[in-house]
């Protein structure tokens, strides 16, 4: 029993990182129907920003979590720039073009990081020192609980934002009908840029959560993480905020449980086999809506 609780907690920790990353995919996909493969690399950029700014905060005697704000600024900058330079010009050229551009952008960021930061793995200094907590015999590191809490709070705020604010409503209107949105006075380009800004800001928060659990970062960090988060987004139903949350948490928990109770070395084969079965049964993902494409 203790083992199960412990594993579930680890699964939730991993899952909430996947979930927050998946949120970035889902936000962009939900608004402009485009899969932003560079999202995982935004997290890498955030990770390196933390690596460089945490020591600065320490030297200035400021609270270390302020580094997250720097990471958010850098990530939002990179995200918005990416959108303006690479994605905006190809918008309306079909999804294949957008997909290839996103893949290209991902490679640009990875190799650019190689040039700027080098390829040696770096340790991001600890931001918080939290005690380990005992729950029903299972010992849970403090940062696991913090990661979970941040993940849940961010997701709730995001859901409320999209549902109740004017901007959120506009964000939901754009994918429904771009022309009609323009007619009612929504600046579609602005909405898309804001979506990217929010998505990239989430990437910065994801990078903070990632680095508190997995301290070592390198320029290739975004590849596996991005891929798994993309799978999580599809699993939950891409385009759905709640779906990203459910998909991410589920993926994390399944991964850890497969590692603990089945094969730790070949867990990916087993994990993804399970996911394929889920998708065969529910092709739109767990919480995705079956929307027929408008002609």
């Amino acid at each position, binding site marked *: 029993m203790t083992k199960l609780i412990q594993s579930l907690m680890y699964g939730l920790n991993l899952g909430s990182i996947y979930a927050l990353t998946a949120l970035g995919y889902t936000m962009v996909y939900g608004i402009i129907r485009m899969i932003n493969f560079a999202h995982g690399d935004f997290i890498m950029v955030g990770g390196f920003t933390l690596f460089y700014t945490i020591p600065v905060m320490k030297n200035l005697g400021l609270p270390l979590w302020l580094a997250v704000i720097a990471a958010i600024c850098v990530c939002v900058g990179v995200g918005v720039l990416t959108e303006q330079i*690479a994605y905006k010009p*190809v918008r309306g050229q079909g999804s294949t073009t957008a997909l290839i551009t996103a893949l*290209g952008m991902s490679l*640009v960021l990875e*190799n650019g990081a190689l040039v700027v930061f080098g390829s040696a*793995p770096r340790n*991001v200094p600890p931001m918080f020192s939290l005690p380990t907590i005992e729950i029903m015999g299972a010992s849970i*590191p403090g940062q696991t609980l913090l990661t979970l809490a941040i993940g849940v709070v961010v997701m709730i705020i995001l859901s409320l934002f999209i549902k109740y604010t004017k901007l959120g409503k506009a964000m939901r209107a754009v994918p429904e009908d771009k022309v009609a949105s323009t007619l009612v006075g929504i600046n579609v380009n602005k909405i898309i840029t804001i979506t990217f800004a929010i998505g990239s800001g989430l990437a910065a928060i994801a990078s903070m959560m990632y680095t508190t659990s997995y301290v070592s970062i390198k320029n290739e960090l975004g590849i596996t993480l991005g891929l798994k988060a993309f799978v999580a987004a599809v699993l939950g139903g891409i385009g759905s905020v709640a779906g990203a949350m459910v998909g991410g948490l589920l993926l994390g928990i399944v991964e850890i449980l497969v590692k603990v109770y089945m094969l*730790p070395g070949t867990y*990916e084969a087993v994990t993804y086999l399970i996911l394929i079965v889920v998708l065969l049964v529910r092709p739109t993902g767990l919480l995705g809506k079956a929307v027929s494409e408008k002609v």
Partner: protein
Amino acid sequence: MRKRIGKTIALLTTLTMAMGMLSGCGASSGSKSSSGPAEVEGDFDGTVSIAGIAPLTGSFASWGEGAENGYNLAIKEVNEAGGVKIGDKSYKLESAVFADDKSDATEAASAYNNCASYDVSAVIGSCSSSCTLSFVEEAQASSMLVITPYSTNATICKTGDYIFRECFSDANQGPTLAKMATDEFKATNIAIVAAEDSDYCAGLAEAMEGALDSTDGVKYEHYGCVTTDTDYTAQISKAIEQGAEVIIYPNNYDTVPNFVQQARDAGFDGPILGGDAWDGTDVTGYEDKFNNCYYLAHVDLSADTDAVKSYVGAYKEEYGSDSGLNAVSSLYYDSIKMLVQAMEEAGSTDPSVIKDALLKITYESMGGTITYDENGDAVKPFTIETFENGELKYYGSF
């Protein structure tokens, strides 16, 4: 409109490729400034060419930097001391090429082909066992002498009589790690977490298990992982559940900080042991968690011996800092010095003659005396390194 978009895509593609090239360039231009061992004036009767392979980019780039520096430093010192002396003639040692295997087995094979396209007497390389294994068979088939400075996988030297190494073999390292756990730390319950997709990690774990199987009263469990993993919480909680007193983590340095941090956070305070691939581990920011961690090393660079002190001094003087000054760099350095000794003892630069001289050689490396057993595999003492609040410390020898 369409045209503009086409252009943008073209631009992006070009940009991506340019970045790729740029990253490649970064490494090779870096090697230009540091490489090309400084020209030495002097009269030579001819030249002897060698080539090197190391991971200058990719996951193991931290090894590559030092490797290239150690390689060039050795060549420079050999020439300053009058070159390779064969009979009454002296030859200038030259590096034909220093190729990047990009920490990838496929790239390593083409890096080897690049080296073999020159008229060289020997190839020095590479670091990771998977990379070295990708070309040793071809080298053996074409009678090319290979000395790998850092690849410990047990099968490498069994490939044939042209394949040598400057380091110990996992056939010895595995049992030594096992002995360290059972004798030094008196463990009777051991957990092993090893990557299954790496020739080095899997081979080392296998050799270790072989030794543990034949030790009485020792219980051990093996949990797999893969080299791209960042989350080890499942393996660690299983190790704690089994009551492990020691965890052995024989994987590469880039994954070590994640593992150690997660193990300590999960409440495991016991010794964590690693293999020689821990060399280069970054402990910054997590110094306290690395207390009670030990790994087997080829050399202790803080040792108070003349060989080590003169190497460290020469390295710092040549490159202006201790960046890349790790065990790997010293192994590349020693590989060349050993090769030169073998050439001089053989009185030839012909690989088929050098290989016989290497089998009989007794070479004093920085990490201790190297000899070769009847199978052509290196026999070398083990050094144990530990961390004391982030500082690398000598712990003992085996």
